[in-house]
C-alpha cells in the first residue's frame, strides 16, 4: 500500500478514505455477511490504493464504489457463484425463513427490510442500496454499475417492484403460517 508518494497518499486520504463507510456498506449488502464484507472491502481498498495513480479527479466515491463492486462480484463468482445466477432468490428465502429467532424478530421492520433486500438478485440489490442508502444520482449509479444511464431508471423500477413484492411475502406471514 505504500507505493504511493507522499502527495498521492495525502490525496488518497482526502479523497478516498472518507468513503470507507460507503465501500463497506455496498460490500455488506452485496455479500450479505459482515465478515465477508470486511474482507472484501479491505481488498477493494488495497486495490484502490494500488491503482490510485490512475485516478485523475472526478467523483472519488463513484470511483471507489466501482472497485468495491467489481471486487465483490469477483469474490461472489469465486465463492458463491450460484448467487449470481438466480433471478429471485427463493432458496435463500426459504433458508432464512422461520426459525424461532427469526419469528421473534419478524415484527421488526429493519429485519424484514433486510431480509427482503437480501432476497433480491445482487444486481437489483445494489441499485437499491446505491440509490436509497447511498443517495447516488442516476449518473453515479450508471458509472458504478456500468449500465447505461437510460437503463438505470427501468432497473430501479424493477428493483423497487421486486422489493415491494418481497415485503408483501414477508417472513411475518411465513412465520405465522409455520406456527
Amino acid at each position, binding site marked *: *500500500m*505504500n507505493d*504511493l508518494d*507522499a502527495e498521492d*497518499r495525502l490525496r*488518497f*486520504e482526502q479523497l478516498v*478514505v*472518507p468513503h*470507507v*463507510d460507503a*465501500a*463497506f*456498506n455496498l460490500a*455488506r*449488502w452485496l455479500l450479505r455477511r*459482515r465478515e465477508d*464484507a*470486511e474482507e472484501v*472491502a*479491505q481488498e477493494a*481498498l*488495497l486495490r484502490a*490504493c494500488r491503482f490510485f495513480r490512475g485516478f485523475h479527479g472526478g467523483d472519488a466515491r463513484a470511483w471507489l464504489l466501482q472497485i468495491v463492486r467489481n471486487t465483490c462480484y469477483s469474490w461472489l463468482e469465486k465463492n458463491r457463484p450460484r448467487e449470481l445466477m438466480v433471478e429471485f432468490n427463493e432458496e435463500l428465502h426459504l433458508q432464512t425463513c422461520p426459525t424461532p429467532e427469526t419469528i421473534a424478530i419478524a415484527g421488526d*421492520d*429493519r429485519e424484514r*427490510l*433486510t431480509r427482503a*433486500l437480501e432476497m433480491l438478485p445482487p444486481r437489483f440489490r445494489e441499485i*437499491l442500496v446505491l*440509490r*436509497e*442508502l*447511498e443517495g447516488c*444520482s*442516476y449518473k453515479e449509479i450508471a458509472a458504478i454499475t456500468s449500465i447505461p444511464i437510460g437503463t438505470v*431508471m*427501468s432497473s*430501479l*423500477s424493477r428493483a*423497487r417492484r421486486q*422489493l*415491494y413484492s418481497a*415485503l408483501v411475502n414477508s417472513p411475518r406471514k411465513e412465520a405465522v403460517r409455520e406456527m
Partner: protein
Amino acid sequence: MKCDFADSLLQGYFDGELTAAGAAEFERHLQHCVHCTVELVDLDLLSGRLQLAQLYEAAPAWLRKKIRADLRPVAPTTAKPQPLLWHWLAAAAALLVLAIAGWRMSPVLGTDDYQVELAEEIVDAHVHSLQPGQLTGISSNDEQTVNGWFKGKLTFALPARDFANDGFALQGGRLDVVEGRTVAVLVYARHEHLINVFIWPTSEPEESARVGERLGYQWVAWQKGKMEFCAVSDAASAELEQLHRLIAG
C-alpha cells in the same frame, strides 16, 4: 390498470432526475392519472421505510484505522533488483508476504491519530449540541421514557440510566452523527455542567479508557460489552471519570 408513464418517467420524477421540462410534463400527466399518484405514494412509503430502518452499515472502526495506518510512509525497502528472474521473483514474493502480513496484522500505528481525530469530531458535536434546541431529541429524566424514545431509532440496545443520586442527573437523549454513522447520545447534568455521552456499537476489543482535552473540553472514551462510549464536557476530568465508572458499572 397500468400506465405507460409508470415505468419510464415515474422513477425519474420521484428521484428528482427529470429535466424541468420532463418534470412539468409528468406533473400534467399526474393531474389525471390516479395510477401514477398511487405509485408515487408507494415509492415514497417504501423509501421512507428504508430510511427509517437505518439499514446503512458503517465500516468498523478498525478498518478505517488500518487503512490510515497502511497509508503511513515506511522506511524505504532495501531490496535491490536482482539480475536473475527467480531472484527477483523470490524478492517479490517475500515483499508480498510482508505486505500481506502488514495488512493483516492490524498495526497499532495510527491508533492515536485516529483517537485524536475521533475526539475532535466528538468535541465538535458536543459544542454543536450546546446551541439552542440541539441538546436533546427527548428531554426527560425518566429512564423508561428515554429508552422508549431510542427504541426503534437505533440498531443497538441502549440502557439509559439516571444517576441523579450520584450527582449526574439524566437530561435526556438525542441522535447524532459521528464519523458518518448514527450514534446515540445521553445527556447528563453535573452541577452547572452538561455532559454528552456518545454511544455506538463497536467490534473493537476492550481497551483501557483513554482521556484527552480539546478546546477546553475534557473527554474520556472506553469500550464495554461491544459498545464504545465517549463522554465529553467542560466539567473536570475527574467528574467524567466518575460518570464513566457509574455507566460502566
